[in-house]
């Protein structure tokens, strides 16, 4: 078990900067998910930690030990690859036992540890098979068994679920969380899938263009995204972003043909300016279709499309100002009527000012940080 620390880590490939000044601490026993779109540098960060790439600048330490000059084989890590990287010429048992062989463990002990890891992942009956004779899910388990067999200080996982079908992925997510709980070891898990991040992580580190955007618990990054990128990236369907103007003197933010009260702290901060261009974010699930007579902030809009998903409806509307907005209407059951909205119908979209996120239009950073 060990904590992991990235300090000002930069990795350049030629003129491309894959990881740009990464500062990140992972606590001992934590399940940290590195989340971001493809090409954001999350896999490179993991490979730097594994020692498969050398940082251009900065240092990495594992369990308090600087590992910059330590070979991958001496870092006491285990890694699960996206492709699983099973050795096709070895049986399941030999694949699992492979990390034990260089460690001078006696044969009988190797067999015992192999069986233990295999049992833990329900592979007991498959030990004599070759990887080609296994299903995708079974291969994935063999890769996990190979990782846990020698009880490393840190587990690294690079998109381990992306080759599984949706049902198996959901099942394996819960199993991974359970495995983490049982082993109590540090897990660093790379994915582009926010569901995986939200469901498994103790903390999520969101990366984009080689830079760390935000680190926090899944709920924290959802509730208070640090910038526009995180706001758009976390949540499905993504947060609605509308262009608005903060007018400190009038204590309002005007957007999409309406005005909402502005937080007073922000008005104080920008009191010297007549207007501040802002991006206004609000999640689809925080919007409602309301009756015009109802009090509160309304945006008048026209329905463009209704997607019925059974448990909810996604209502795509365009505001009178021309901004596309998605409203998510949960269908709660209990005999409540299913709203019937027809295309081109005029509607009022209601929102609560406390659900509004404000971002600086030029820096894209959260304003009420």
């Amino acid at each position, binding site marked *: 078990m060990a904590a992991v620390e990235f300090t000002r880590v930069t990795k350049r490939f030629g003129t491309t900067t894959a990881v740009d000044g990464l500062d990140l601490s992972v606590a001992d026993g934590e399940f940290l998910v590195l989340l971001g779109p493809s090409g954001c540098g999350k896999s490179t960060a993991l490979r730097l930690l594994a020692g498969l790439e050398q940082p251009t600048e900065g240092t990495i330490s594992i369990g308090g030990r600087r590992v910059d000059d330590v070979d991958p*084989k*001496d870092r006491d890590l285990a*890694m699960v690859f996206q*492709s699983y990287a099973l050795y096709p*010429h070895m049986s399941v048992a030999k694949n699992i036992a*492979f*990390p034990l062989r*260089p460690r001078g463990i006696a044969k009988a002990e190797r067999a015992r540890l192999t069986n233990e890891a295999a049992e833990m992942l329900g592979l007991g009956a498959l030990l004599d098979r070759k990887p080609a004779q296994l299903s995708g899910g079974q291969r994935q388990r063999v890769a996990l068994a*190979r990782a846990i067999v020698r009880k490393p200080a840190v587990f690294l996982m690079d998109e381990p679920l992306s080759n599984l079908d949706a049902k198996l992925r959901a099942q394996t997510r819960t199993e991974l969380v359970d495995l983490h709980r049982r082993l109590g070891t540090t897990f660093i898990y790379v994915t582009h899938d926010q569901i995986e991040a939200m469901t498994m992580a103790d903390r999520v580190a969101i990366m984009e263009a080689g830079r760390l955007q935000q680190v926090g618990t899944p709920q924290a990054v959802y509730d208070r995204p640090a910038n526009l990128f995180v706001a758009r990236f976390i949540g499905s369907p993504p947060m609605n972003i509308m262009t608005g103007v903060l007018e400190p003197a009038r204590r309002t933010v005007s957007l999409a043909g309406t005005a909402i009260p502005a937080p007073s702290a922000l008005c104080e901060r920008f009191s010297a300016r007549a207007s501040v261009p802002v991006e206004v974010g609000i999640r689809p699930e925080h919007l409602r279709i309301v009756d015009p007579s109802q009090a509160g902030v309304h945006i008048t809009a026209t329905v463009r499309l209704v997607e019925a998903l059974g448990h909810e409806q996604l209502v795509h509307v365009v505001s009178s100002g021309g901004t596309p907005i998605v409203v998510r209407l949960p269908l709660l059951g209990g005999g409540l009527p299913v709203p019937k909205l027809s295309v081109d119908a005029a509607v009022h979209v209601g929102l609560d000012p406390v659900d509004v996120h404000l971002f600086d239009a030029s820096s894209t950073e959260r304003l009420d940080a």
Partner: protein
Amino acid sequence: MRRPRRRRDWPWAVVLLAPALAAFALWVFYPLGRTIWLGTQRSDPFGLRTEYVGLDQYREVLDSSQFHNSLKVTFAYVLISVPVALVLGLGLAVLANTQLRGMRFFRTVFSSTVASSVAVSALLWFVLLQPSIGVVNQFLKSIGREPVDLLNDPDRALFAVSATSVWQNLGIVFVTVIAGLQAMPQELHEAARVDGHGAWSRFRNVTVPMISPTLLFTTVVLTIRAFQTFGEIDLLTQGGPNERTNVLTYALYTTVYKERDPGGGAALAVVLFVIILLLTMVQFRFLERRVHYAS
């Protein structure tokens, strides 16, 4: 009543196979049959067929001391040249399969002997090994050793000829092995590194099994080529000194063209064919067990 599909299809099968069968018949089966038949015919001193002797001539070939010597020389030649070419070519391929600046240059150099003919490589080595002006002896002289005429030294000539063949075969081994190495997923190496395996262990436990089909193919091809070596021997030693490099193909050539005995030569050719066939079968039988084919 419908005829079974298989019976209905066979005329088409014959038609479609006919061109290939005709080519095989003309260039493979007929010459092979003709050679076997020729081995049953005694030749007179002018090289003309005289009488049918059945298997007698085959028996004579198998009993002759020349055949025994040639068999020994050929096996020695194969056992020296094939493993050395294989190990050196594999080593060079592994070294050249790294992502270093300028590696393309070395890859070109190492594979270049593929494009050189036997005559060129024999001549090159003839000059290198030449007793008075050759680089090898220049080097020996410079370190204060006596010059040696390797190609005329009965104890060393076979090694000198084998060196030529190793050099000649290095290119083909290099090219096939590096192709195998580059087809191998990089992640297997990375997984083994993270799993704690050093360079040698990765080579032995991951690289070699992964390229084993390539290695089997290369071994079989090199062995067949070594059994059929003729050019190097003819250009460098003509089977000498003292018959010490008189491999089976060269003995066959002298039997037919110097001794004017096409019947005896044919018998020897058939024996060589059977030896190569059996050996290739044995190689497949025993080596294939250790080969992993990707599925």
